[in-house]
């Protein structure tokens, strides 16, 4: 597996398309256990990311760095700093490197560490972390394939439904947050589903 600059741009563009398609759905999920802005926040920010991807990039790290800066200044809310930090950490991790499977796993590990630190949160709190952590597990396995990556993300996203939120706005709903998917986990699932799609096409 090799993730090129073109693949990375393709990945982010597909993620943006997915977000704009699912904007209302994501906001609706957030309305149930938050304040209803997750879809709008993400779609607004990644629209700008997509528009900024037409320039020349020397390496994957540069694409991700540009993404991080745009996300931090355009998304807002809780997801802005969290996704912004994730992209920044991924960019730092792959600086000067070709992105193969091992580097990709290191990137996601760094991103997950960044999200946890920024959000002062751990697995099992019904957040996007509950998708990122299992995805990391899969990426660290010897011979994962695109299909497995997508499946892991999807199952992890679904598992947030039964969890009780202890971080973010959903935590005010306590047990009543059960029975609802976490919006950030769903958008993170889209991110990895599109990554799997791009990797799958390349393989």
């Amino acid at each position, binding site marked *: 597996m090799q993730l090129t600059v073109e693949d990375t741009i393709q990945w982010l563009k597909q993620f943006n398309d997915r977000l704009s398609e699912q904007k209302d759905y994501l906001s609706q999920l957030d*309305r149930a256990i938050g304040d209803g*802005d997750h879809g709008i926040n993400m779609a607004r920010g990644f629209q700008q990311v997509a528009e900024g991807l037409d320039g020349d990039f020397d390496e994957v790290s540069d694409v991700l760095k540009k993404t991080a800066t745009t996300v931090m200044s355009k998304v*807002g809310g*809780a997801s*802005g*700093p969290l996704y912004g930090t994730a992209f920044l950490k991924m960019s730092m991790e792959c600086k000067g490197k070709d992105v193969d499977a091992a580097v990709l796993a290191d990137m996601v590990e760094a991103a997950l560490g960044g999200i946890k630190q920024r959000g002062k949160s751990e697995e099992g709190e019904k957040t996007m972390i509950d998708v990122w952590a299992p995805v990391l597990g899969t990426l660290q396995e010897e011979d994962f394939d695109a299909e497995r990556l997508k499946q892991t993300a999807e199952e992890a996203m679904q598992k947030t439904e039964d969890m009780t939120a202890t*971080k973010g706005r959903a935590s*005010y709903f306590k047990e009543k947050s059960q029975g609802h998917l976490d919006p950030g986990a769903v958008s993170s699932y889209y991110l990895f589903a599109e990554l799997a799609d791009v990797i799958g096409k390349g393989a």
Partner: protein
Amino acid sequence: MKKLINQPEQIIDEMLDGIVSASPSSVRRLEDTTVLVRKDAPVDGKVALISGGGSGHEPAHAGYIGKGMLDGAVSGEVFTSPTPDQVLEAIKATDSGSGVLLVIKNYSGDVMNFDMAAELAEAEGIETAQVIVRDDIAVDDPENRRGVAGTIYVHKIAGAKAETGASLEEVQATAQKVIDNARTMGVALSPCIMPTSGEPGFELADDEIELGIGIHGEAGIEKRKQMTADEIAAELVERLLPEVDLADQDEVAVMVNGMGATPEMELHVFNRKVQDLLQEKGVKVYDTIVGNFMTSLEMAGCSLTLLKLDDELKELLDAPSHAAAFKK
């Protein structure tokens, strides 16, 4: 959806320009940002106070800009925390070299975005300190409590402290004292409509109210059948008093805050009962304010804040303020 707006995407931008046109001699907007600052910022020799958060809480936060209160306010999209670059612009524009205090309400979005801005400011050699307001007792875990109307007292009192020429550390300590002694709880009678989607932020049946609601419609303690003003006042006073921990001679400041759509008439009806109850319980009221201070778009309902005072807090509460939404 009937709203007095143009394009929903333009609301924040147009509101900010509108606020400046209402107070052109005291407030200005930093170009290409969502930041409003005191016209005379940075104020020499004074610690600057910055607050902010999502929009939809007007007059918070920009209405509290002025001598005696805030130096700057950063506005995000409706109910969405502003981004770190905007907060950084506010910090840079208001710092006189004496440092900047960030007044942050306890929401993960606000905390993270202001934190990142503080890191960026540090990289540029600007000293900042922060306080995190968590006055909403509807949330059990004190660490996880939301920042709501009590924030106004932080602006007022820490703002007055900054005007005395106190250091950043001293202003922070005073702000923290306010936070430690302010407790709030709110109630919603009907939800607000999100301008971007045209949808209500949460559901509430016609004959239902929600106790302990947050200022973005986040869940409260419980839904109840409709109650009278007196009953709601009793419920809120009952829940707040044990949380303020009053000794015999202590005095409190009382804020009855409208959530946006509740007529002042009703706020006064509610306040009358609050005052009666406090008197019955032997609580001395030093100061009362009634009005719309921290709203939630057109949500109907109100919140009650009690702030336990000491001599320092009284003096600073009484100090002059030129802020458009809090003239004193």
